[in-house]
């Protein structure tokens, strides 16, 4: 039969052993294990950028249709950005015809705060020209989203459109699309499209 003092010793040993196991696992083993795991890597891809007209007359409109997908791991957020360097305001000249993103796309006007260099932090810079951001939060692996816009240029000449997509967390060079080409004021790669706008 176990005496009271033996019982105390057994309990004390069990307590010390349990706490040792707990702290070794929680403080040393598991953090190292989680650090060794592969970080999720979203791979955004613009599978379709369709511009309805390559030449229009001033006062006319053209349509843009974009299809974007995520070829990598689930992203917490994936963004499709369309920028219009020729415009000074966006809301009078760009309208959203349709979209199936999880959240509502939004316009960015000149001087609005935007992040740069694929960063996720609060470090922001002022926008140099108007743009539109469509995003899904989350954007699961292999999911595809679409957006259609109607654009009316505000003057004649070459009307330029910058398109890019960024997956967050931005864990490597695959987390943005395109991966080369022109770099915009946010120090991020963009694909460039244009429409000739002629005087009537």
């Amino acid at each position: 039969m176990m005496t009271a003092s033996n019982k105390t010793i057994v309990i004390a040993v069990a307590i010390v052993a349990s706490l040792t196991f707990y702290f070794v696992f929680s403080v040393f083993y598991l953090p190292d294990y989680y650090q060794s795991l592969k970080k999720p890597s979203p791979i955004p891809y613009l599978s379709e950028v369709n511009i309805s007209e390559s030449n229009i007359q001033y006062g006319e409109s053209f349509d843009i249709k974009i299809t974007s997908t995520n070829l990598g791991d689930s992203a917490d957020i994936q963004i499709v950005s369309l920028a219009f360097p020729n415009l000074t305001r966006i809301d009078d000249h760009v309208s959203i015809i349709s979209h199936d993103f999880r959240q509502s796309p939004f316009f960015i006007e000149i001087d609005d705060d935007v992040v740069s260099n694929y960063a996720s932090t609060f470090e922001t810079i002022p926008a140099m020209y108007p743009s539109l951001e469509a995003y899904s939060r989350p954007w699961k692996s292999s999911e595809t989203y679409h957006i259609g816009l109607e654009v009316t240029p505000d003057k004649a000449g070459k009307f330029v459109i910058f398109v890019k997509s960024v997956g967050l967390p931005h864990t490597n060079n695959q987390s943005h699309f395109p991966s080369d080409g022109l770099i915009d004021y946010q120090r991020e790669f963009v694909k460039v499209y244009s429409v000739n706008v002629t005087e009537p």
Partner: protein
Amino acid sequence: MSSRTSDTSSGSAEESTQTTLDEEKYRRSKLKFKIGCILISLGVLLTLSSSSWDITNHLINKPETFFSTPHLLLYTGVGVAALGSAIMFVGKRSLANQGKFKLPMRLVIIGISMVVIAGPFDYTWHVAFGLDGLLSPSHIILTFGLFLASIGALFGLVFARNYSPLLTSQKGGNQIEQEGKPKQSVVLPSMDNLLSVIGILPLWLTAAGLLYMFSLPFSDTEFFDFNPDPTFAAIFATIGFPLLLSTILYLSYGLNYRFGILSIAGAAFLLINILTTMIPNEFLVPTISFYFLSIIPFVVADTILSFSKTKSLQYVAGGVLGSCSFMVYYPFITYVYKWAFTQDLVFPSLIAFVYSELMISSYSLLVGPLIVAGILGVVLGRYIISHSKILEQKIE
């Protein structure tokens, strides 16, 4: 037998019948009162669990409408708590010695009134300023109201447990430790033990909710920036969370003096956190087994408190609980310290990485203050138990 003797026995029979009727009436009233308290506790529990899910939902899905499933459950919880307060009130009206139940009833009425006011205020705030952050005037009113209601419901459950309407002496297990030695002869029915867990959990969750409001950086919105100062948030969390954990779990032990209740309360808290913050985030699911390991310090603290009645060992139990608070409040605690160290937010998919970085780099610095705060939690728990008993006796 004389007629006089006969009259006396007839009177005794009448008195006996009357006493039986009174006992039945009081038993029913007490049952109503207890059901009211239980409904309030369950309602607050549902509200706070849904709030936790709602925070996770905002982090992962950024809902754009007020009408989401977590919000629906949150306000269902409010409805259940409001119904509970009405039943509690009906039960209290019929109870003898009503003075004893005034305090819990008042706390519940004030708390539920605040919650009911907070609902439309919250909706109006959403309409006026868009989706709000964690800390907003309406959320403060809501959470503080739930906090008061959960204290009232817990007091109600404890007072009702110790209340015997037709006896002058009170019975029950809520006895103060006499020089650190609780009376082990008092054994409660298991249902009362479980009820105390149901009473304790909402109090724990509402208090944790208040701490989160002043430490999580989720309150910077389009119109208002209520985010806490990062240094303040870190200090506040380092003291507040272990203090709360230790106090609440000591109370769960001290209200029953039975092994197992502290562990059940702790396990229930872990389970609620797993259901509301980890399962909705696919990237946290692999860390559930790590998280549930925190049942170990709960069982250890439970064992220490149950098998040793010395003050110093109770403080050891508090220190053990305090030291594990960094693990128990995972995953949200990650945001607090990341915000403090880098003023940056954490992507939901990277929580486990960032948390493990913090564990490696900072836990050794935090563990001292966590232990001290855990010990203070036991001091506070002992103080609350002794004073609630004194309060109960004064009311009588």
